[in-house]
C-alpha cells in the first residue's frame, strides 16, 4: 500500500511538472470521477449533482441485471450485468431523470449545472 501511494505521488508530481512545462494549469489530483452505485435495486446516490462536462459512471453491485435509461430517451445503457459499468458524459446543463427498464420502480436523477 505504501509503495502504491508513493508511486501515485511520483506520478502526480510528474503530471504537475508536465502541466507546468506545457504552460497549463494542473488538474486537481484529488477529484474522483463521480460514480453511482447500483445496489439492492437502488441507485446510490439517487440525486447526483455535477458540473457540465462531467462523465458519470454507474457500477452494478447487484447480481440482477439493471439498466440506466433516460426517461427523455437521451441515453440508454443497455444491460449492465454484475460488476459491469456504464458511463455517460453530460455536456449540457439540466436535470436528467433515469430509471431501470427491468425494475421501473428504480428511479433517480443527475443534475448538471
Amino acid at each position: 500500500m505504501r509503495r502504491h501511494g508513493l508511486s501515485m505521488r511520483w506520478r502526480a508530481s510528474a503530471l504537475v511538472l508536465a502541466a507546468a512545462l506545457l504552460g497549463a494549469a494542473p488538474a486537481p489530483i484529488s477529484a474522483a470521477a463521480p460514480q453511482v452505485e447500483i445496489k439492492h435495486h437502488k441507485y446510490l446516490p439517487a440525486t447526483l449533482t455535477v458540473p457540465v462536462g462531467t462523465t458519470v459512471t454507474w457500477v452494478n453491485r447487484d447480481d440482477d441485471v439493471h439498466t440506466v435509461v433516460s426517461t427523455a430517451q437521451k441515453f440508454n445503457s443497455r444491460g449492465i450485468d454484475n460488476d459491469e459499468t456504464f458511463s455517460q458524459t453530460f455536456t449540457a446543463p439540466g436535470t436528467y431523470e433515469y430509471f431501470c427498464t427491468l425494475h421501473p420502480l428504480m428511479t433517480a436523477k443527475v443534475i448538471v449545472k
Partner: protein
Amino acid sequence: MSDDKARQVVPDGMDRRGFLHCMAWAGTGVVWTVAGGVLSSTRLGEAAEKPAAGSFSFAQISDTHIGFRGEANRGAVGTMGEAIAHINALTPAPDFLIHTGDITHAQKAGAFDTVTEALKGAKASKVFYVPGENDVFEDGGKEYLGRYGVGPSRTGWQSFDYKGVHFVGLVNVLNYKAGGLGSLGTEQIEWLEKDVAGLGSSTPIVVFAHVPLWAVYPKWGWVTADADQALGYLKRFGSVTVLNGHIHQIMQKVEGNITFHTAMSTAFPQPKPGVGEGPGPLKVPAEQLRGMLGVRQVNYVQGQGRLAVVESPLA
C-alpha cells in the same frame, strides 16, 4: 385420483390463517386440488395414480435465467438440465410445457437458443412461452416476439383449448414506464374479454403470465397494475388457475374461484416478500439450493373441473 384417507379436505370459506397453515406444506411436496373453491391437498406421490380417461397433465418451468453468472448459482444451465430431467420423470407424463418467462437473464446472444435446444430434450409435444422482463428489456420484445410470437401480428399473448380446458398466456412485462409497474394494457385486456366471451362458465380456465397477477408485494414490483380488470372477465368461471413466475418461490392465494400459484425458478431463489434489503438473487448454502429450485406439474381430471398442482423441487 381416488379418494384417499390421507387427503386433507379444507372447506370453502376457510380463513386466512387456515390457508396459511396449509401453505406451510407447499414446499415439502403437496398436491393442491382445486374444485370450484374447495381446496384439498395430498402429499406428493399420491398424485401419481392412473389418470382417468380424458384427463391430462402439463408442466410449468419458469425463470431459467440463462446467462446468470452471480454467486447464487454458478451453474444455471446445469440446474435447468436437472429441471428437464425432473419433467421427464413426472408421472403421468406432461402433454406439453409452459415456460412462464425470464427465459434468459440478460438477452445475451445464444441464451434463447440454449433454452430452446434444452427443452427439445423434454418429453413433451410442445412448449408455450410468455416473456419475462429479462427477455424483452433490450429491444422492447423484438427478438422474443420474432421467436415465440403467435399469429400474423406475432403478439406475445395467446390462447388455446386442450381437452376441454381453455389456456390463456398473457404478457405483462412490456412498455415499462419510470416509477410504474408491469401491466397488460388496454389492447390485451380487450383481446382477453373477446377471447373468453363465448365460453361456458363451466369451462376450466388456466391463465399463465410472468409477473404475478395478484399483489404479492407491490413495493418490489411483484404485482401487475391492471390485473384486476383482466381477472374481472374471468370471475364468472367455476375454475380459474393462474400460474406465474417472477418471484422465484412458491406462493398461493385463493380469491373466489380463482387460485393463484407462483412458481420456483430453475436458476436461483429470491427472498420472501419484504425480507431483506430488496428483491434479487438469494445466495443460500449449496445444500439448500436445489430444494428451492424446481418445476411444477398440473393435472386435470376430466369432468371434475379440478386442477391438481404438484410442486417438484430439484432435491
